[in-house]
């Protein structure tokens, strides 16, 4: 078995150097990479050894006890887990499409604004919610949406006669019919502005000659948007969707601060389920939550591979 050598177009065979020799030749780069490698090993790969506890009863005290697939059996036979799994996918994917769509629309509107001062001011205003912590956002919206007589939204609904004056207000955050729409709205309010950055950057890169050509051809503003702007954005939209699709299983904080036990059926996600199973108990069993976490990671891994495949198909190159 000889080494495979490269052959140039003109038929000259170039002898391939051994790996050791190539590493030696580029030793400077490898040395520079060494800290990163050590960092990755310690902080990313070393903790992965903890996945073995999915096969153990592992509590804060005592030695772990091997229990085989007990936790996986329990997990797959628990309705609450499947509810959380389904909710994770639904909430994440719908949120992803909504926020991407909203960001594109807002970006186009911002791009169309002629007044630079107004544009910059508006940009700043819509970026600001992104910098608020989810805990603060949840507090603000809980006050707005409070079912008690002090809730602003319920107050308005009563004033407008939509809700009976002496009746009970709508408990938006504790009603399965309202929770998800409210959740999507809050997410849009918080992150649409931030999401416009990448699209505005793409828009600023569109050749102005295309618009000038459109003007000469008598294209209306809407037509220019449809035939120049949107096609130019298409590749970026797909990229953003694909990159974010790989993260759909990571949903936690935004749900954790807004949900409650009345809406578990529509709001509980894998991460919040794991949290409750781990930290809401006086003596948690990390084995079970590790099993759920491992399953979540495996699904996330599959999604990354699917996204990589989709990326190759649509953009000609993968994401990993």
């Amino acid at each position, binding site marked *: 078995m000889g080494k495979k050598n490269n052959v140039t177009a003109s038929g000259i065979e170039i002898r391939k150097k051994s790996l050791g020799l190539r590493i030696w030749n580029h030793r400077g780069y490898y040395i520079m990479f060494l800290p990163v490698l050590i960092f990755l090993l310690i902080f990313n790969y070393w903790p992965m050894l903890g996945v073995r506890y999915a096969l153990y009863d592992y509590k804060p005290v005592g030695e772990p006890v091997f229990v085989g697939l007990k936790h996986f059996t329990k997990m797959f036979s628990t309705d*609450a887990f499947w509810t959380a799994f389904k909710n994770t996918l639904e909430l994440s994917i719908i949120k992803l499409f909504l926020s991407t769509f909203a960001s594109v629309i807002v970006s186009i509107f911002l791009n169309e604004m002629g007044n630079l001062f107004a544009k910059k001011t508006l940009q700043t205003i819509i970026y600001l919610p992104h910098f608020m912590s989810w805990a603060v956002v949840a507090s603000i919206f809980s006050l707005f949406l409070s079912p008690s007589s002090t809730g602003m939204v319920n107050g308005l609904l009563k004033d407008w006669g939509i809700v009976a004056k002496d009746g009970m207000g709508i408990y938006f955050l*504790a009603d399965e019919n309202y929770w998800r729409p409210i959740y999507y709205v809050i997410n849009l309010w918080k992150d649409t502005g931030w999401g416009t950055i990448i699209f505005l950057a793409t828009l600023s890169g569109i050749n102005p000659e295309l618009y000038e050509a459109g003007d000469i051809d008598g294209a209306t503003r809407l037509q220019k948007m449809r035939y120049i702007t949107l096609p130019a954005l298409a590749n970026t939209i797909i990229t953003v969707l694909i990159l974010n699709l790989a993260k759909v299983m990571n949903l936690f904080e935004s749900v954790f601060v807004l949900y409650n*036990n009345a809406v578990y059926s529509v709001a509980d996600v894998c991460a919040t389920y794991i949290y409750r199973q781990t930290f*809401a*108990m006086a*003596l948690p069993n990390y084995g079970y939550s590790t099993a759920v976490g491992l399953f979540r990671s495996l699904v996330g891994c599959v999604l990354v591979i699917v996204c990589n495949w989709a990326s190759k198909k649509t953009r000609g190159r993968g994401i990993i």
Partner: protein
Amino acid sequence: MKKKVLSLLLASAMVVSLAACGGSDAPAESSAAANNNTESSAADNNAGNAEAPAEEFKLEKVKMVVNGTLTATVDNGQAEFEKQWEDAVGVDLEISQLDHSGYVDAVGRLFASQDYPDVMIMSADMYAQYAPTGLLWDMTEAYDNAEFQSRMTLPAINEALKKDGKLYGFAPTYGNGCVTYVKKAWLDAVGIDASTITNYDAYYNMLKAFHDGDPDGNGTTGDTYGVVAAGFLGNEAPYINYLPEFWQDAYPAILQDENGVWYDGFNTEETKAALLRLQQAYNEGAIDPETLTASTKIAREKWFSNDQTGSSGVFTYWAGSWYQTLTDNLIKNEVNEELVQLPPIAEVEAIGGYLNREAPVWVIIDDMDGDNTREQAIFDAFIETMMDGGTVQTLWTYGAEDVHWSTKAEEFTVNPGTDNEKTYSYEEGVFHLKQSPNDPNSVWKKNHLDPALVVSPLTNGFNSVEGLAAEGNLFFTENCVDAPISPVSETYTNESGTIYDAKMAVVTEVVTKNGDVEAAMANYVATVGSIIEQCLAELNG
């Protein structure tokens, strides 16, 4: 060549810095070994102490984890408390005060990172779960030989905590519980005499009057509620203490009957009846709908808020010093402060009165090295001194001298320039509490130990339990009954989260969604029935 040298240097620097981050404890460990033990952290001592001769153990530091019951918080004179404790005991004290409402979560995270303290406070639930694990040091002998035994006035409290004759945690006070407070001004506004509230019907009519009338006097009806609480069902024992009038004889947890047989108190007719009472109250505005999601802090602040619109007339909360605290907060918010402590209504009286919860305990983490000298030293430094009847017990009871309390002559005024202005004047040598460090408009009340509840009283004569706090304590002790004890079983430990979720599903389905109670309970049985059966089999086996 220069680039290579530079890259090599850069890489070396980063590797060294990384290694330095990870190994910061190494010198301390070396030092500890050299000095034959210095710090006492359970995790740090596993190896070193085993080799140390027992009599040579020298405790230099105690790592303590506590919840919000230490009222000398960081912004309320904790540094001075810590300093005076260290001066009195001669040991360093490291206080880690975790979020009160998320204490169980926070302790779980702490243990998950293997960061064990030396001593920590545990609720009765936590104590029941951890006692059999071996994590908690068996302090029976230390407790029996403690100096404070000769001054104990309530020995039964800690005797009741023993599991198979062994004591794994020390309760410095009895449990205390909640009583129902009613705003007197609201009662007057709706024309109800508190003495007529003797049964559930009268209680419920009062709640309805608070919702349907205009007790806050803002000219609008229907914008106030009868009662507010932190949840319809609590997540720690005794679960029902914030709404006892609704739960009455129901105790929705695994508990023992009069023959000592364990059974599921949730799946009972009493619980179903309680859920229907809550459902009616929720639908009719007698109970603030935000009870579903409110934390204790939110419920409290809503109740004594300056703007009484959206507030409630009734609040069931901790007895004793909280009577004073709630009153002070009403004064601070310029709300009529007069409160009525409601004696248990007939249905609550039928079970003996308000529930006295199982006492929270201080536990010592066992480093499991087979040598008790470290743990005994911690007991001596921490628990023995906590009950010394003098300097250290005063620190735990009232806080730091000349910060929270003093015996020096002084005069101060709270709420100056308002209708509630009050001047306090003390002569030299007279014990008195000072203004709260973080709120000059209120007088400090206590630190960690409630002097009225403590199992072994102070011997220095310092006493601040007077007025409303004393009245509240007396009222509670005259109207309370011990709460049922918490179950301990392997399955219950593993599945308590799932069981609680299933219970809450029933509560929300029935109370807030008008669901059928039988159907909801059937769903509960279908979800966790087999788990409950297994728990009961273990408990009764």
